[in-house]
């Protein structure tokens, strides 16, 4: 009986501790220690900017590795994707300079089940990466123009679904992650519409999602312990949008698209 009590207390303590760790994400001390010195991050972020500029990219999709590849599920390489937009940037002293601004969907701090749209810059984007590697998709000039039109319009914010799931299903409504948002904006640009039902219909017809290859029981437990993980928008076997699948999608349908991986 005594052993029984000890085990119950031990298990509850560990599970609760794990739950806090899972929902807190960045509370993990391992993530709090930058893997690379500031100089390397700054140099790599500028390298990415120069590469985009040399290609004449006014809009590109940029991806980073927030976790080591060894920790990623099968078929997933990059952990976060966003739009890099060639911009006139005003500095604190009033100077205007040319460069890239990054348009992200990020989880809210302290509320991992909620997201917000945040604009930052390449060095901020790569600040906490696990690996210095960037995924880059440069759409055709025509699609870049259409993307600019969406990003510069109220349609951009209207496509944001704040209810977040890290494995959001790109074919359904109700949950969204960074890659699904990128895909929704892409399809809004391609079809020149911000009608989300129409966008989802086209997504179902032409986009191939990445199956989430995780044991269903483990996934169920994950939804219980992680506020940023939900299967409420997954009617069947869970699928999600990834940077790689978005790149494949554009390679299939956007003539002139360029896909590349950048290393230091």
């Amino acid at each position: 009986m005594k052993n029984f009590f000890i085990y119950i207390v031990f298990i509850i303590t560990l599970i609760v501790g794990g739950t806090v760790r899972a929902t807190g994400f960045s509370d993990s001390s391992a993530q709090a220690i930058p893997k690379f010195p500031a100089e390397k991050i700054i140099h790599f972020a500028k390298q990415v900017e120069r590469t985009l500029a040399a290609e004449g990219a006014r809009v590109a999709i940029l991806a980073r590795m927030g976790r080591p590849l060894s920790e990623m599920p099968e078929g997933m390489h990059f952990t976060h994707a966003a739009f890099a937009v060639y911009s006139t940037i005003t500095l604190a002293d009033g100077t205007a300079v040319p460069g890239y601004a990054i348009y992200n969907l990020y989880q809210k701090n302290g509320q991992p089940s909620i997201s917000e749209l945040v604009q930052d810059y390449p060095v901020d984007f790569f600040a906490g990466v696990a690996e210095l590697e960037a995924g880059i998709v440069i759409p055709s000039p025509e699609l870049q123009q259409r993307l600019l039109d969406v990003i510069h319009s109220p349609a951009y914010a209207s496509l944001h679904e704040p209810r977040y799931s890290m494995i959001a299903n790109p074919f359904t409504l109700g949950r969204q992650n960074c890659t699904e948002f990128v895909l929704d904006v892409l399809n809004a640009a391609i079809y020149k519409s911000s009608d989300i039902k129409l966008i989802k219909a086209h997504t179902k017809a032409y986009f191939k999602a990445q199956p989430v290859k995780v044991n269903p029981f483990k996934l169920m437990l994950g939804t219980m312990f992680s506020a940023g993980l939900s299967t409420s928008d997954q009617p069947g076997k869970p699928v999600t949008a990834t940077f790689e699948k978005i790149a494949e999608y554009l390679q299939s349908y956007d003539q002139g698209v360029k896909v590349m991986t950048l290393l230091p």
Partner: protein
Amino acid sequence: MKFTVSAFSYLLVCCSAINISEAIAADSIQTASQFSAHASKTMGLGIAASGQVVLGVAALPVMSAGGVSMAVGSVGAASTAVGKDSAAAAGIKSPGPLPVTEQTISIHSPAEALKRPTNSLR
């Protein structure tokens, strides 16, 4: 003994579930946190504190001339076409290489970073 095995099995499954949720986790956590305790912000501020970045206060997309316009909720003529047809053909060309500043721009200013207590910068 049987209970012990079961309990540890359950524990292992729980831990692995948590690890999976973290690994899958698109790390959409903002590198620019509004909370000082946030580790990602710590990293961003760490870079800002290096003194090699300048603060960007606003960014305006550079729109090219002759771009197509788009209204919220509008359904264009291309909306029933497949992506291949709709995304391709209007003949807009790449502008060629673009200039970029040599400065590194951040949403964090060095001044902001230097106001942080030293022990918050890991």
